């Protein structure tokens, strides 16, 4: 079997994969990062969203083999270097933006991409962005609140840093 090498959450990893091995399978079974979830088989639900070279990608839609040399970031890489929760993670907790937690990693990874593209999204823009992320527990209410709050926190941090 061919071998693939990539950087996941800043660590170089490599492993043998079949041609049909999906990125999400490589992450979960190949290197044991089970925070990325599989909720469907038609690429609708978004439980598997990770970042590949800085952009959000559904890890069930790409073959691991095609990502040789890529930089991948998963939910396991979203905490601050000191281990404390990142801004979006903390906002989800603060605003009860999760219940069963299964969609949460994908939601957070998706939200992180939105907020790097748009620092001040409106409620409507957040809802539209989440079109590819299903949640069955929260009615999205508190997820939207959490993402808007995280955006405000990140803007505040930026102002403080300047």
């Amino acid at each position, binding site marked *: 079997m061919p071998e693939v090498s990539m950087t996941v959450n800043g660590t170089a990893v490599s492993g043998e994969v*079949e041609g*049909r091995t999906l990125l999400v399978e490589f992450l*979960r*079974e190949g290197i044991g*990062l*089970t*925070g*990325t*979830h*599989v*909720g*469907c*088989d*038609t690429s*609708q*639900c978004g*439980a598997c969203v990770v970042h590949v070279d800085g952009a959000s990608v559904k890890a069930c839609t790409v073959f691991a083999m095609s990502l040789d040399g890529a930089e991948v970031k*998963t*939910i*396991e890489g*979203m*905490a601050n270097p000191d281990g404390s*929760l990142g801004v979006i*993670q*903390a906002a*989800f*907790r*603060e605003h*009860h933006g*999760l*219940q*069963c*937690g*299964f*969609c*949460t*990693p994908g939601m*957070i990874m998706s939200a992180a991409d939105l907020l790097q593209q748009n620092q001040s999204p409106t*409620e*409507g823009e*957040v*809802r*539209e962005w*989440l*079109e590819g*992320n*299903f*949640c*069955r*527990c*929260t*009615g*999205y*209410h*508190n*997820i*939207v*609140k959490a993402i808007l709050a995280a955006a405000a926190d990140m803007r505040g941090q930026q102002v403080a840093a300047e």
Partner: protein
Amino acid sequence: MPKDAGIGASSKRREDARFVTGAGQYTDDINRPGQLYCHFLRSDIAHGRITNLDVSAARAAAGVVAVYTAEDLAAVGGVPCGWQVTDKNGEPMKEPKHPILAEGKVRHVGDPVVAIVADSLQAARDAAEAVDLDIEELPAVVSMSAAISGSAAAVHDEAPDNICYDWEFVAENKQAVDDAIANAAHVTRLELVNNRLVANPMEPRVAIGEFDRARDEHTLYTTSQNPHVIRLLMGAFVLSIPEHKLRVVAPDVGGGFGSKIYHYAEEAFVTWAAAQLHKPVKWTSTRSEAFLSDAQGRDHLTTIELALDADHNFTALRCSTLANMGAYLSTFAPCIPTWLHGTLLAGNYKTPLIFTNVKAVFTNTTPVDAYRGAGRPEATFQVERVIDKAARELEVDPAELRRKNFIPPDAFPYQTPVAVEYDTGDYHATLDKALDLASAAGFAARKAESESRGKLRGLGIASYIEACGIAPSSLVGALGARAGLYEAATVRVNPTGSISVFTGSHSHGQGHETTFAQVVADMLGCDEGAVDIVHGDTSKVPFGMGTYGSRSLAVGGSAIVKSVDKIIAKAKKIAAHLLEASEADIAFENGQFTVAGTDRSLAWGDVCLAAYVPHKYPIEEIEPGLEETSFYDPANFTYPAGAYVAEVEVDPETGVVEVLNFTAADDFGNVVNPMIVEGQVHGGLAQGLGQALLEGCVYDAEGQLQSASYMDYAMPRAGDFPMFTVDHSCVTPCTHNPLGVKGCGEAGAIGSPPALVNAVIDALQGGGYAVEHIDMPLTPKAVWHAMAAASPAAAAE
């Protein structure tokens, strides 16, 4: 002032620390050493006879360890049903066998026929291609009305008319109801569909069987809402494994909504196969399999008639329902359209006479069972729709018609004519609160503004009541339950004073680890962080009936309270001994034991330590240690109730319905964690509005599920909803459980569909369209067609 800890505080959830970091441990995250992978070859035909099944090539395929068919499972029982309904003639329901793998016949698309176990999932799937399976097609029984027409094929030989039971309730009221309807000043009649849904928790089902040969012990890791129930059903009825040799673990579970209550064939298979092969066997459902094999919800066809006198008092209600069971009886399926449905038909109203007939129907479709609300949404939908239709026919305000017929707040406890006795409630209060929060008084101006943009605006209301906290064991036993419905809890105080709580409730999103800790911390005057909540493992928890029917806090929480009460009583004895005082003089408050009227006191930790280091101890009177177990069996159901207001805009050009505002005013009794309660309501609303606007199972005439993936089944998305307005400030505490709580998990899904449909009808009628009813889901197509059939021109004629 919001509290910052204990009962009433919006404590942040401790569960979140693992879920927001990817450190949760769901069943599919578990991999056992040496595990094999299972794939089920499922029928792609709804009804047929297996004429040829040759698995020899699959057995020889690369990576395959074993291939099993029904022949191999001859010594294994079928999947049991947990509730027996007795029909109107006193006969037990028809209960055909539900085999683990299809025996001779297939009865729905997705019925498992062959199980392939291989050293990789890919190998198992690939080998399925090598199975030689021929199925002779039989006529598929799909629509319920056709199924019972007398000319349909039989899904099961045991039920040639496809009727599982024909149930009447309240049978002795039948004549009186008929008479009242015949003599009524006005009768409103409505035929409606309660659309079939797929629960769709985001985590698909997973099961891992494991067998320890040296100890003769079986373990099942499974995505379950009630691991002890699975142990009981699978151990006693399917595999004949005694409890002490069978451990069932339901770790982090990614949502359930009812669909993970039931014992499923796949769980039994992997447990059995692991014992055959002496290796762990894992099965992970794909979403496509979930659509075909997870028990589905709702699917009622109902005719309802409401009789009113000249003063608009409700005088009688008569209902007739066909309820789809699917191809086999799932665990609780028979009780959903009967005891969780017929008993709720009084709703919030003093209707004196009620009669319903329910025929449960076998069809060649996936089994149907409880889905969030389970019977109560179906009851509420028909009652609230027919009341709204009556108000429109009589040209009275729908809110006023409801108020006129509400059970008044001073009438509690209130014995309904449908067996249940409501303990408390104030339906006027929640309706007034909901209308106030929804700014109903300003609706006319908003409607005019919508009209100026060519849109039709509508306001719809619905009241609801539900029976939660299921349930008194003696009562459900009399109604056919094959189990008790108490809950168990052990509270273990550790030597240094920290507390481990072992609860039979199971959290799969509800936040029990936080809420239950708040209750215990409040009672013991300690930090919530000192309390650990353990659930989901039959080897740790004494027993448990699990989580469904909004029962966890009302029943499971009450069991915890009982144990904590026992702990405090014992601790007081120890404190009295240590303080050399009379037990009657010991007060316990804020974690301190004090001799009344003195400054002599002991801290919680001192007493806990003494219980485990009993050097100075009343050893003649009590045993060392500080651990108590309780089983709490409720005296009654709880009755959460409330009122919901939907405000919608309909685009007459396209039929698109936009939910502008949705307001929920609920009476849940006392609330432990408002943040979590509000989150439960949000989620329930999204599922109810999903049912009303988007979701629905579509089977074609051959029994193929057309809506069998997220490509075709319209799951609610973030863009489908506004921010919700939720309120739980109207409180009439439950009178028969120690916390005064009622349960909040299902309310949103129960009250929202009728409110939404009522709002759309209001918008259309307000726009001059004589539309009386549209069956859910109210897709643009459904709304557009209803409008086209009743154009303003036609309405004007």
